[in-house]
């Protein structure tokens, strides 16, 4: 119990909650908090160049460290600029506490300078938000914000603090144990349902694990338990974009990512399975394809901490509300104690079937000696960095999907990408946050030349804090995913998707004080990547790639998993060579 100003309470609460870094941008309505930050050195402020960057940086920080990301922005434009980042964090379930300044309480509603209805605007893009109207409420609300952000399904929380409350004096109290008076998310899964799930799994003839970001969010322990359960059962496993790294890509039971640009084997296994075990994923439309044809023959088990995710898009047979780590632990224990005997013969033929799908080599592409194929660039980037435990962020588009397909992840919290909202401009500020949380680590933003320009200004932040992030741009001069859809769905009419008048990325890097590298020759790519890795400064790598390469495999419009299309190089025995063709060969 200590007397202090509201601004001092904010800084004290950050310290008491274990926050070491806060990403922000000052302005009139938060000056008292900036003054309080000035008087201490426990919480380090990271000055970004745009408030959207602050939120994405905090997301990268949170996702790579498992901690709550903290943001501090001013009223009005500070808050509205943060909205995209907050929505991104809500869609991807990232724990954030965002403190916004507000005009003094007596001016709220008067259209004062830099006033906006922050709690109104952010109500739909936060897990919860607060407008603090009395200094007595401030300590409780600050601690509650951290509790709400990180418990249950994580998400962003906004605390809007008017300037007079920041100046007001009051009594500070330390975090209490009860977190929130009523909000108590269910962590343990229902024992009966878990037992029914394990019994169903034991009887499966064609099982598949379908895992997602919930496993990452449940902490590294959940990833360990997932590996244990998969190894105990010996069943195949696939993952959403958000869940990559929870299960090691080097394991033979790994089928690769599923969904719209997932592998042939992963999507076919989902379609043909008889028991689907969904852990911490939410049957998103990029995963399911056509809903009425989604995995028609399977019984479905769904583990999710958010009850509203269960039966939202897809009807499931066993819905278990609980934290992935808790439920996985129970499943592992139950499987060990009951040691069921799955149908070995059925499983062997299921793996044979998976083998024939794998043999289609759905990620094969036509190599080139003249131009760098984007897939090749990611493959080389992976090969040359895999021993350095790299952290990868991405922007949004083709490069993001290629990164997910060709860069392989073996540990959780190494892969930071905007999944739900699909925010171009996410990768660079996220990389800044990742590097801040993991000094000394190799952090690479795999980018496109269009996306990177959306938050290019954060290069300046990277330089200021000596964060040696690497920006690896797959430069095809197009908004590649837009161009691909225009080619496939809109008669190749490339309306406004060509990136005319691009900056010289090498000079741009130098202008910021970083290092620029350009490569357009496949033969020199390895050397150039090595040069990037060995440069102890921020680097922009302009990797000039094949302009018209498409991202395959792909589930086309309104189609099901078993109707996916493959690239030219994939072995398509069924449809490329018909019966007549086979007779000729």
């Amino acid at each position: 119990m200590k007397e202090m100003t509201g601004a001092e309470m904010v800084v004290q609460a950050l310290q008491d909650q274990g926050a070491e870094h806060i990403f922000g941008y000052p302005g009139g309505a938060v000056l008292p908090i900036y003054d309080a930050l000035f008087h201490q050195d426990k919480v380090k402020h990271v000055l970004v160049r745009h408030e959207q960057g602050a939120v994405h940086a905090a997301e990268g920080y949170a996702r790579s460290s498992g901690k709550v990301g903290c943001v501090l922005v001013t009223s009005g434009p500070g808050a509205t600029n943060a909205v995209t980042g907050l929505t991104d964090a809500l869609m991807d379930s990232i724990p954030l506490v965002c403190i916004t300044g507000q005009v003094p309480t007596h001016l709220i509603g008067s259209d004062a300078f830099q006033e906006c209805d922050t709690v109104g605007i952010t109500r739909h893009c936060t897990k919860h938000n607060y407008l603090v109207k009395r200094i007595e409420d401030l300590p409780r609300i600050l601690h509650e914000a951290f509790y709400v952000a990180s418990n249950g399904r994580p998400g962003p929380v906004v605390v809007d603090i008017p300037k007079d409350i920041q100046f007001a004096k009051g009594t500070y109290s330390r975090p209490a144990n009860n977190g929130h008076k009523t909000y108590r998310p269910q962590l343990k899964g229902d024992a009966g349902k878990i037992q029914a799930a394990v019994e169903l799994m034991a009887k499966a003839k064609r099982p598949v694990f379908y895992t997602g970001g919930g496993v990452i969010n449940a902490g590294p322990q959940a990833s360990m338990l997932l590996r244990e359960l998969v190894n105990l059962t010996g069943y195949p496993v696939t993952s959403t974009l958000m869940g990559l790294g929870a299960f090691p890509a080097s394991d033979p039971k790994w089928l690769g990512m599923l969904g719209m640009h997932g592998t042939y084997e992963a999507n076919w296994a989902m379609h043909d399975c008889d028991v689907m075990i969904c852990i911490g994923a939410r049957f998103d439309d990029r995963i399911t394809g056509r809903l009425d044809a989604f995995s028609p023959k399977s019984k479905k088990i769904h583990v999710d901490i958010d009850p509203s995710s269960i039966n939202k898009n897809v009807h499931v047979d066993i819905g278990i509300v609980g934290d992935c780590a808790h439920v996985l632990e129970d499943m592992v224990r139950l499987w060990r104690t009951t040691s069921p005997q799955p149908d070995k013969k059925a499983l062997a033929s299921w793996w044979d079937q998976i083998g024939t799908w794998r043999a289609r080599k759905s990620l094969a592409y036509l190599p080139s000696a003249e131009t760098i194929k984007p897939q090749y660039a990611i493959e080389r980037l992976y090969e040359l960095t895999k021993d350095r435990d790299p952290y990868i962020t991405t922007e949004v588009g083709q490069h993001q999907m290629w990164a997910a397909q060709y860069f392989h992840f073996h540990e959780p919290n190494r892969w930071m990408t905007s999944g739900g909202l699909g925010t171009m401009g996410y990768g660079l500020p996220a990389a800044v946050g990742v590097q801040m949380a993991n000094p000394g680590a190799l952090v690479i933003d795999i980018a496109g030349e269009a996306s990177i320009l959306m938050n290019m200004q954060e290069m300046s932040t990277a330089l200021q804090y000596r964060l040696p992030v690497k920006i690896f741009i797959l430069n095809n001069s197009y908004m590649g995913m837009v161009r691909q859809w225009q080619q496939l769905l809109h008669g190749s009419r490339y309306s406004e998707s060509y990136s005319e008048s691009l900056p010289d990325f090498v000079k741009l890097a130098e202008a910021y004080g970083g290092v620029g590298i350009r490569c357009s020759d496949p033969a020199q790519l390895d050397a150039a990547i090595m040069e990037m890795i060995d440069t102890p400064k921020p680097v922009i790598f302009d990797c000039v790639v094949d302009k018209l390469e498409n991202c395959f495999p792909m589930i086309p419009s309104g189609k099901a998993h078993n109707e996916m299309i493959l690239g030219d190089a994939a072995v398509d025995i069924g449809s490329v060579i018909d019966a007549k063709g086979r007779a000729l060969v």
Partner: protein
Amino acid sequence: MKSHYSDPPKRQTLARHTLSVLVDNEPGVLARISGLFSGRGYNIESLTVSETEHERHVSRITIVTTGTAQVIEQIKHQLDRLIPVHRVNDLTVLGDAVERELALVKVVGKGEQRVEALRLAQAFNARTVDATLTSFIFELTGTSEDVERFLRLMAGVGLVEVSRTGIAAMGRGPESM
């Protein structure tokens, strides 16, 4: 279809449900709930709010909504996900709940029409809460159907204004929420 989004679902039968929601009576809680309904495209037929436990600052919100079984399930889960929401009870699932609303009805007229209005009001057990030489205000409490029937009759005898509270509801039997 030139889009990756799936087609809209086929028409399914809609059901009408009455939900009772206990919430912390804090600023913005009603906006959160009404915003949830508008943001996710759910229907609100009636919504009634009032603080019911003053010491604990707990309010009870009664919502009447329509949707498919799946949508109703989602509405309940989405409501429950809001931080200030304590409990969501689906009174329609729990059985035949008591549902009442109150209406204030202003009728203007002279002579025989005025006498007829008063006679009908008495037949419906409506109370006369205001009277002038040319007008009445009647207060009627009942089910929504009762209120509708009363209003239809009043339309013929000088109805000029109606104010309705929306539905307050409670499950039958000894159990409490």
